[in-house]
């Protein structure tokens, strides 16, 4: 009896499974194609994750990740009592949220403006000009910027010519963060518009025609047709940006532009971890702990942004 019910149960549960397998077999070549990508994620993204356990261990080079002894959250205790850590965390949050508030809207506004250009040639021209800086690495851009912003750089020469005082944007803590935002907008604004322009291209042109017949002006069309057409894209990108807050403070940019004089405002978690690990030779376990903390905060922010978007009636990303 027991055997029967057991075998009966198995039959029931294997039926959909068999169906699934059959469907998979039918699409076997597609699965074969997906396999390398899957393998990539498993090998390079998931398997190395076991390494984060060194955040909870006293890492010993000779004993390796598994063999090193557990240390009772010592790295986390040390991290939270380090005054520098709180300072760096504050910088990270200030810069990251600054980017969300100041930098995030620029590509949207720029895309809306581009969308309004009638001549396709000028539209392409502006888009190319504004997208180009994205393809320069921060190493190159930092070299160009340094030459431009040096004490005797072009900016100061122009300022002096016009009778103003010289500025030292690269070494003055009060202007450094603003310089970060401005240069990042310059570099990434054009690239950021691509997705919005694609979303705009997907809007049904008959809507615009109908609106024109109804006598709607350009601003009204932008507000009533274009904006609702790209709103969901904006929300998705915003959620992703929030989820990348802690990492999105911009290691590449800051690392190539900062100097000890502006550490007080520009040192972020990523640069702090980098210096600790490679210059000061800190324990890998400690720097992993800081990195893990960063990832957890990121994760929490991502979920909250998603939840918030859903509450506001948007779709969210999961």
């Amino acid at each position: 009896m027991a055997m029967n019910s057991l075998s009966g149960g198995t039959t029931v549960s294997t039926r959909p499974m068999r169906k699934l397998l059959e469907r998979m077999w039918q699409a076997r070549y597609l699965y074969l194609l997906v396999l390398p990508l899957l393998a990539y994620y498993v090998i390079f993204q998931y398997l190395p994750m076991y390494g984060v356990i060194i955040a909870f261990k006293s890492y010993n080079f000779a004993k390796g990740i598994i063999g090193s002894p557990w240390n009772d959250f010592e790295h986390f205790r040390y991290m939270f009592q380090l005054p520098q850590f709180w300072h760096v965390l504050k910088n990270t949050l200030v810069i990251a949220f600054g980017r969300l508030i100041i930098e995030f809207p620029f590509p949207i506004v720029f895309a809306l403006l581009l969308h309004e250009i009638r001549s396709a040639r000028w539209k392409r021209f502006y888009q190319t000009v504004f997208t180009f800086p994205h393809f320069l690495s921060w190493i190159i851009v930092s070299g160009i910027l340094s030459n431009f912003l040096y004490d005797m750089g072009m900016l100061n020469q122009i300022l002096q010519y016009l009778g103003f005082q010289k500025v030292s944007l690269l070494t003055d803590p009060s202007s450094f963060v603003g310089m970060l935002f401005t240069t990042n907008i310059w570099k990434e604004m054009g690239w950021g518009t691509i997705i919005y322009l694609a979303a705009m291209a997907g809007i049904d042109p008959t809507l615009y025609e109908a609106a024109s017949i109804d006598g709607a002006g350009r601003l009204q069309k932008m507000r009533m047709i274009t904006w609702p057409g790209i709103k969901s894209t904006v929300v998705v990108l915003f959620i992703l940006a929030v989820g990348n807050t802690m990492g999105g403070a911009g290691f590449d940019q800051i690392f190539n532009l900062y100097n000890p004089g502006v550490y007080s405002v520009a040192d972020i978690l990523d640069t702090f971890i980098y210096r600790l690990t490679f210059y000061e030779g800190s324990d890998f376990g400690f720097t992993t702990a800081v990195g893990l903390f960063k990832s957890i905060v990121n994760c929490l922010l991502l979920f909250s942004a998603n939840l918030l978007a859903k509450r506001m009636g948007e779709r969210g990303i999961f």
Partner: protein
Amino acid sequence: MFTQKRKSLVIASLLTMSLVATACGSSGPATSSNTPTASPSATATAATTKAASEENLEVSVGFWDVDKALANRGSDDMLTKMEKDFNITFKPYTYSWSDYSEKLKLWGASGELPDIFSTDMVGSSTYNQWIEQELIRPLPDDLSAYPNVQKLMQRPDVKALQKNGSFYMLPRSSGPSTDAWLFDRAILVRKDWMDKLGIKEPKSFQEYEAMFKSFAEKDPDGNGKKDTVGLTVKLPGFIDTLFLGSNPAYMNGAWVNEDGKWLPSVASKTMIDGVSQLKQLYVDGALDPDFSILKNLDGWEKFAQGKAGAIASQVTPNALNDIKKLWEKYEHDKSFEDSIAILPVWTDKDGNAYRFTGAAFWSESYFSAKVDDAKMDRILKLYDYLLSDDGRKLVDYGFEGKDFKMDGTNLVVTLGKDEKTGGNKALGDIYPSTGLFGSLASWYDSFNAPLSVQIEQFGEKIVMISNEKKDEWLKSLKPIPTNYDVMFLSTPAKDKISAIPFNDDIIKVILSKGDVQVDWNKVIEDYNSKGLQTAIDEVNAQMNK
């Protein structure tokens, strides 16, 4: 049609998978063949050592740009000689000047350290950790089989580096005496600008500051624009040079004895004088406003372009020659040699002028714990040869009869002229492997090279300027008082604070808009929280034993 499509799909998938598999297979520069599995054995007999020396050994070497140095196997006679004489095949593990420390730490973490590698980490927390966790191996206790190595390890500035009774590194010597550091930090100045502005050779801080300010403000290049700076630095870290005029020990990291107590130089009571002087130079516009953001050759370029009146830099004949090459890229009225002078840093408040000195080595060679005794023996034989007079001569001047000849006691270089540049051929062009062998065991010591060779390499005028100053400074300037026993003493807190980037904090204070004393007190408070006081207590307890 369908089969065709299916075939291409299968082939495409297989290719992609093989790509992924290849990517997974490679792990850094190491391959399985280069890491011997034998663990260090302390009881290798003479017989096994002898047997081992008969087989060819692969020795992996971590060194700056070593891939280029070992690229010409077959046509590079020096490489051929070394590999044949010691029956070794070298395998390069390359790193650059900007990433060597990072790369070595990564290799250390992943168990891929090369058999030999060079870096500067003696006394650091990484060094102690790697000894404790058996990543690097000690040298044998008995070095009598390698007399040149033994001689080096018995020098007083080296002897202090023993840990637990053994040496875990071999210092890369920069010369037979600590005087060789003389020109490693000084001020290179525009003599022609001094003459034009009627400035006499300065001595005190005030005189120096006045001179730098004149360079910045009085249009010394006469182009009618205010486009020159007073004093710049080769790189931001070179601001430590200027402490020779206040707290000289800060320059070489020595500990100072104040009121019977050993203190790290950064905690000396004279430290604030130095920081204040630098801040004053910065605020008054005597110091380059961009000094903290200079990279690579920016500082030298500024000087060579005629945009800076003075620069804190190395002034060795080699460095002068390099700056001269940059200088010649730009238009100048006078030659480099006729436009410059070398000055010491200003006198301290007691009227003493100091010159740089330090342990007579910069950076060290380390040996992976995976190197067994037989391989270690072969490596030490190589080092012994490189440290010998014959070895030094080979890597500095090439083969006798071919690259140089002896004219009595005079060594005459016969490398000939480079057809393209018209200048002398460099040994490195003929034997790229000198890039490794020339500085693996010890640095080329231009300080003690025969005069004829120096002139051949750097030109007569530069050599004359250097030699004149050398004689003068050895007599008139005091070397930084340095106690190597304390300097290289290792205690847990001392090792930890040695990793603090002090220069960064000094730069922070210079650029800050706040009061220098208040800012510096904060820095010291931060050091205390990182273990400064504990380090002082530990060191004094050890020294009082």
